[in-house]
């Protein structure tokens, strides 16, 4: 076990940083010609990667709340993913500056009919100053929790003992309701309000379900990628750790399907004029084929693959399924946000790719950068030994 602070990764940070700068620069160029498309593509990429950071933060809080001991060995990596949240606060600026290109409620003057009425009715909530103030609150809560949990954990590397474990557990458990509420309202603000008529109370959980699954997928891929590197957590995982990650992937694949179907069925069966147009566009037009593909690719196929015990215990194959899940999770958010811009059907743009790669590469660069200065495994945690011996049954 390497207790010295990690100092490597500068090459990966450099390459990912350069890719991020190039891809985000291209997206910015695209915004000059077609700001609506650029902003929408950017919004998909933003909520995709932000969701994964938040999913990791909520998982960290939940593991502390459960006093979980087996995941201690992978906890430092899990703590570091949400350290990218300050980056997302910065990446939120383009959205704040270009609000009017995506959110119709920003400039309601040109709207007519029921849309104008809906926007006028929701004015006390959907207005620019309150929208931005809420975003500030969300980021303050997220960054605060993420910062404290990791700081205490890193401090424990030096001092050891149980006191800091208790502190992390208290904050981890206490933060969960606040994380849940801020995540839910962020989903309402940044994705649901694109169509001001539409409302679904479960919408935040829908974003969470995909993002939480994404966080597990990132963990599984990182575990497989660092398997041969003695400095990193992947090297210390045994087959039972990998198996448990696989079980979580299976469980939350089913959870995503459960939530996605719950939202769909309630709206479909109630058939209310405010809600149902959202699904008419996404299931009726050529977007419906994307929806069917999601039901198969985001649920049926990964669910049956992940039933296999052998696959769940094989880091390489598990990482391949995880990569597939990350891919279809992007398609899921694309299907949620893009039909508002392209009502007639899917119209892929090169900016979808540059925004996704740009934000993703920035996320990766910042993540690796933030890994520096601390051990890659919580070496001061009293439960680390127990975690390394993990063998259920």
């Amino acid at each position: 076990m390497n207790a010295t602070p990690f100092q490597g990764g500068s090459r990966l940070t450099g390459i990912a940083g350069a890719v991020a700068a190039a891809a985000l620069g291209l997206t910015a160029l695209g915004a000059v010609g077609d700001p609506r498309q650029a902003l929408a593509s950017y919004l998909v990429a933003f909520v995709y990667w932000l969701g994964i950071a938040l999913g990791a933060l909520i998982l960290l809080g939940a593991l502390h709340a459960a006093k979980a001991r087996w995941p201690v060995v992978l906890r430092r990596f899990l703590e570091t993913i949400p350290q990218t949240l300050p980056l997302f606060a910065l990446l939120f600026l383009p959205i704040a500056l270009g609000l009017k290109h995506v959110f119709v409620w920003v400039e309601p003057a040109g709207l007519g009919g029921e849309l104008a009425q809906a926007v006028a009715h929701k004015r006390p909530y959907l207005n620019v100053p309150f929208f931005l103030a809420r975003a500030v609150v969300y980021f303050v809560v997220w960054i605060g929790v993420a910062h404290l949990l990791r700081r205490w954990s890193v401090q424990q590397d030096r001092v050891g003992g149980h006191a800091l474990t208790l502190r992390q557990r208290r904050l981890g458990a206490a933060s969960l309701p606040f994380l849940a509420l801020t995540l839910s309202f962020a989903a309402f603000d940044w994705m649901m309000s694109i169509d001001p008529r539409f409302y679904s109370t479960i919408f935040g959980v829908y974003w969470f379900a995909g993002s939480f699954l994404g966080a597990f997928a990132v963990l599984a891929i990182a575990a497989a990628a660092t398997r041969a590197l003695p400095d990193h957590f992947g090297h210390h995982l045994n087959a039972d750790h990998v198996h448990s990650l696989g079980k979580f992937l299976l469980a939350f694949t089913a959870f995503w399907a459960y939530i996605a179907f719950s939202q769909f069925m309630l709206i479909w069966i109630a058939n209310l004029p405010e809600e149902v147009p959202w699904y008419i566009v996404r299931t009726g037009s050529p977007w419906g084929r994307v929806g069917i593909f999601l039901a198969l690719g985001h649920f049926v196929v990964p669910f049956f693959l992940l039933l296999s015990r052998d696959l769940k215990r094989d880091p390489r194959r598990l990482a391949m399924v995880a990569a597939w899940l990350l891919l279809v999770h992007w398609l899921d958010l694309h299907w949620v946000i893009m039909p508002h811009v392209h009502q007639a059907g899917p119209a892929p743009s090169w900016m979808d790719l540059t925004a996704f790669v740009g934000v993703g590469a920035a996320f990766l660069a910042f993540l690796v950068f933030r890994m520096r200065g601390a051990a890659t495994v919580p070496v001061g945690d009293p439960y680390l030994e127990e975690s390394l011996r993990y063998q259920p049954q």
Partner: protein
Amino acid sequence: MSARAYVVAEFAAEAPLLAAARALRGRGLADLDLHSPVPLHGADEALGLKRSVVPRIALVLGLAGVATGYVMQWWMVGVDFPINVGGRPPQSAPAFIPITFELGILFAALGIFLGLFGLWGLPRLHHPVFEVEAFRSASVDGLWLSAAVEAAGVAAVAAELRALGARQVEIVEDGP
């Protein structure tokens, strides 16, 4: 069918118990079992147990439940007695999913519950090895091995178990 007997042997510790199971399995005895009041780590490997078939039972019955749930609704409200619910067509797949899901879960759960009973040999309530008075300690503090043996080999197996360190060895005839 030739007569069979059970040889049961008590061991003082876990290691010789598992070693004895491995040794008997090496002699070609397949019908072995271990009895212990606490979980035995390594017992599956010592007995050469294969992966449990319970997950497969659950999968097959779960899929059967899904098919039953869907076909039942498809036939009842779609074909046999079409009902107009809020103007939706009789064959409305989304409305069928919750029952389909529930029946899948129910069948899988019942499959696990009853399948385990079947694998345990229930409703058989008595077993010849219960004839051994000392065997009762298997649910208190005794570590026991039982082997089903052809009548001809009983003496050899009993001798081998003693050689392997058994504290006591008993022979029970199978049959009425």
